[in-house]
């Protein structure tokens, strides 16, 4: 079976059906057994403006990163697609509308920008759409049809996938989509002379027996939260986290839970802490600016030892920043934001799969360690669509991780009892004998405010100590490659880890002695494993999407050595190619 690894981008304006056609393509190719990593970017504005890009990497091998270069660009809008051409491979392909209603000026037509070596297939998208559906709406489906015909995708099966996508819509919608697809398919079959060598035709993988779910990071988080017994979701909409709220608002009530759209982010985290205090699993999701607002009140969960799960999907900052662009620059605020010494658990999934597992883990840890657990996603991970093995919901014993007081303890109940592991058994309000004071003020074991010279040190130490237990419950850092005498060790976190992993695998194929480590848990910090990795490597590289190297700065004091950095703030996910280039540079 020939290797297939093709990146397709559909680029249009908001309202062109760019994202929906990308979704259909990804889902269909996934159903055909291909590995998928897709990523949509879209404007923060509403329909009628702005550029949308549906990016899909489709492969019959395992894929770990979205792919830097596009092989096939479908232009639904000339101006936007022209601005996307810089990502097209030198031998890439452009599918574009060669019969727009009017002649375009030289700089407005994508054909005017195509470099020699690239191949363009002009398809009368608008004409065929009008013929098939009586409107311009079906241009995206015409393009998909042409794509299928040119690149050896089964047209009949794809039609069924389109049917399934619109099954809940009325017949007119279904028919116009299917007919538009069929028009594009037939036209391309009859008129396009294929002069490129890309094809999916000869390389269809064997369908896997595993049940696959095709979801993005936000969907994985929402699903995991619901599967983890989420009772209350409170939130205020913000890109790129809004989707979590949308899903929860639809699905949570069906499970008897409650979704509250609050007046702002402060209120949202207040609701979560309130529900947590009352013994219910609760969560909020936000992004940079909202996270800043929450950071003060979120500290109450730390001080009052209340379980709270807070998802922060990072975007470009500071301030309103770049709402629809990617960045990993909220690490500092996630780890250290807030007043005082404020220990919290921070988890950063590196893949869509881990978005699910980290969320279930977050609820478990928040409840057991009675504290704030922050899940750090980012724009890419939130929107990155993968076909993953259907996640296994948490087992019953994971759905309640609260360490409850014994009957004896309730006789003289000390809510903040100093224990060996720092966890004070927690009586849910209403538990007979469990009456206590909970406060954001420093407090005694009974919860009474205390500012004496002994209480604060003891309680501070307790709060730091208790979360150390989370280290043994979180996945161990992943180490790929040799265990000693490594020339270059790459340590990555969050969504950058996939690209770093792929870059390391490719660098190893080139004969470079390089290894890879990533960690999901960032606080408490897995010092032991990362130190061991560092000791095995002559040089350490940390690639990340922020200007100052926030993760490298966290590592530095633990490793007491110099760390080389690859920091990017382009708003785009870091690519395996970027990291590989840096590794090659270091190896030279």
């Amino acid at each position, binding site marked *: 079976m020939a290797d297939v690894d093709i990146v397709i981008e559909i680029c249009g304006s908001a309202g062109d059906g760019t994202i929906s056609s990308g979704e259909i393509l990804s889902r269909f190719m996934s159903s055909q057994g291909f590995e998928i990593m897709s990523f949509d970017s879209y404007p923060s504005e509403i329909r009628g403006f702005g550029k949308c890009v549906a990016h899909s990497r489709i492969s019959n091998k395992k894929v770990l990163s979205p792919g830097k270069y596009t092989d096939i660009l479908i232009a639904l809008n000339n101006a936007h697609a022209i601005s996307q051409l810089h990502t097209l491979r030198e031998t890439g392909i452009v599918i574009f509308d060669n019969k727009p209603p009017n002649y375009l000026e030289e700089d*407005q037509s994508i054909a005017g920008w195509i470099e020699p070596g690239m191949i363009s297939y002009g398809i009368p998208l608008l004409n065929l759409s009008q013929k098939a559906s009586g409107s311009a709406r079906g241009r995206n489906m015409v393009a998909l049809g042409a794509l299928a015909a040119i690149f050896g995708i089964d047209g009949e099966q794809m039609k069924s996938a389109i049917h399934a996508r619109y099954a809940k819509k009325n017949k007119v919608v279904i028919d116009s989509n299917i007919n538009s697809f069929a028009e594009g398919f037939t036209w391309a079959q009859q008129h396009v002379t294929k002069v490129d060598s890309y094809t999916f035709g000869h390389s269809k993988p064997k369908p896997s027996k595993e049940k696959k779910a095709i979801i993005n990071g936000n969907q994985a988080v929402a699903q995991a939260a619901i599967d983890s017994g989420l009772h209350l979701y409170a939130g205020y909409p913000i890109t790129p986290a809004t989707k979590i709220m949308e899903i929860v608002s639809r699905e949570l009530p069906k499970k008897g839970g409650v979704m509250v759209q609050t007046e702002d982010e402060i209120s949202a985290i207040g609701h979560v802490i309130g529900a947590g205090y009352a013994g219910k699993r609760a969560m909020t999701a936000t992004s940079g600016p909202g996270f800043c607002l929450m950071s003060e009140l979120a500290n109450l969960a730390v001080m009052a030892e209340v379980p709270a799960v807070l998802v922060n999907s990072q975007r470009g900052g500071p301030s309103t920043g770049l709402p629809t662009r990617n960045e990993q620059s909220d690490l500092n605020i996630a780890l250290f934001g807030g007043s005082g010494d404020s220990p919290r658990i921070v988890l950063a999934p590196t893949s869509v799969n881990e978005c699910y597992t980290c969320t279930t883990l977050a609820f478990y840890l928040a409840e057991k360690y009675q504290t704030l657990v922050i899940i750090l996603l980012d724009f890419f991970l939130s929107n990155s669509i993968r076909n993953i093995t259907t996640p296994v919901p948490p087992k019953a014993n994971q759905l309640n991780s609260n360490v409850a007081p014994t009957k004896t303890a309730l006789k003289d109940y000390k809510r903040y009892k100093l224990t060996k592991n720092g966890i004070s058994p927690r009586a849910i309000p209403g538990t007979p004998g469990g009456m206590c004071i909970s406060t954001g003020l420093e407090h005694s074991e009974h919860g009474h405010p205390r500012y004496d010279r002994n209480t604060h040190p003891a309680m501070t130490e307790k709060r730091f100590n208790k979360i150390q237990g989370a280290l043994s419950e979180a996945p161990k850092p992943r180490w790929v490659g040799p265990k000693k005498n490594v020339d270059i060790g790459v340590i990555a976190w969050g969504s950058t880890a996939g690209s770093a992993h792929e870059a390391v695998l490719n660098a190893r194929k080139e004969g470079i002695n390089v290894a890879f480590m990533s960690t999901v848990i960032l606080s408490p910090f897995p010092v032991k494993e990362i130190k061991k990795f560092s000791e095995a490597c002559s040089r350490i590289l940390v690639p990340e999407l922020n200007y100052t190297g926030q993760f490298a700065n966290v590592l530095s004091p633990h490793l007491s050595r110099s760390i080389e950095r690859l920091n990017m703030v382009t708003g785009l996910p870091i690519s395996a190619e970027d990291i590989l280039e840096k590794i090659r540079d270091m190896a030279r």
Partner: protein
Amino acid sequence: MPKKDHYVIIGNGPAGNSAADAFRANDKDARVTIISDEAFSFFYRHKLPQFVAGNIGEDDLKVRPYSVYKEQNIRLRLGQCVDRIDPEEKILYLRHMEKVGYTKLVIATGGSPRILPSLTSFEKHLRFMTGYNNAIKLMPEIQKAKTITILGGDLISFELVKALRTMKKKIFFIFYSKCFWPVELTGNMSAKICANMKKKNIEAYADDTVETLTEKGNLYTLKTASGRTFKSDLVCCFLGLVPNIGYIIGSGIDTERGVLVNEFMQTNYKDIYACGDCAQIYDPKLKDYWISIGWSNAGLQGKIAAMNLLGSSKVVKPLPKSIRDVVGIKIQTSWWDHF
């Protein structure tokens, strides 16, 4: 700031490329653009027979890499067809609905397959090989076909036969010796050619004509005036080239068989010149027009056209004749290079 000059060349053959090079060599600032409807780089047309036979790859066809255009700052637009020229407004209308303005224009669109009037009704069943676009379509068909009929009336047809023999295909060759292109066959040349072909196991028949050509289930049945029947998987037609000017007719630019130009390669519009296989060039001595043919002529004319557009006044002359070997027979060709 004044707007930059835009020198546009339609055609990516030897004429178009040497025009572009000459523009760039003599004007560092102007925009220079080549537009070609073939989605492939500047290539050696004479190598197409070996290419479709699978004996050489795409890289062997290329005259030069794309990087040359980048280095010279020449914009190369491939796979884009000019549908119409408006010489008054100085605008080209491209098939994919784009308008391209120019200040100076060189027409270098070469030739297209010649189809004899007696064959026009069978055109849809015939395969040609004048450029990359039709060669790439033909290639898989040739690979698949076991038996191929060739209507041969030009030098290219012999090159294809040579290439097909390496593939061990069964070939029927119907030899149009009377209207041979680009040379006239004299004396008993055609009989000798046929005899030599037969020696090489090719069924060759001189001066028969096609009466009917039908297709059924991908099998073509060809009946000739003399009553012969040929059944084959493919029928290829090679009867020479005619200037490719269909898209120019009606634009106001004077044409006859080709684009009419004076001895300086200038058309009836001062900023439009034509050169290479598409041009019909006036010779003041002959007081008549001649049609350009052949690779080297085209290259030479492209350069002269560009230089003259920039202010020179060089007169074009055809290159000397050369001798070519066709299945063992020496033929004097008109400007047809022997590679």
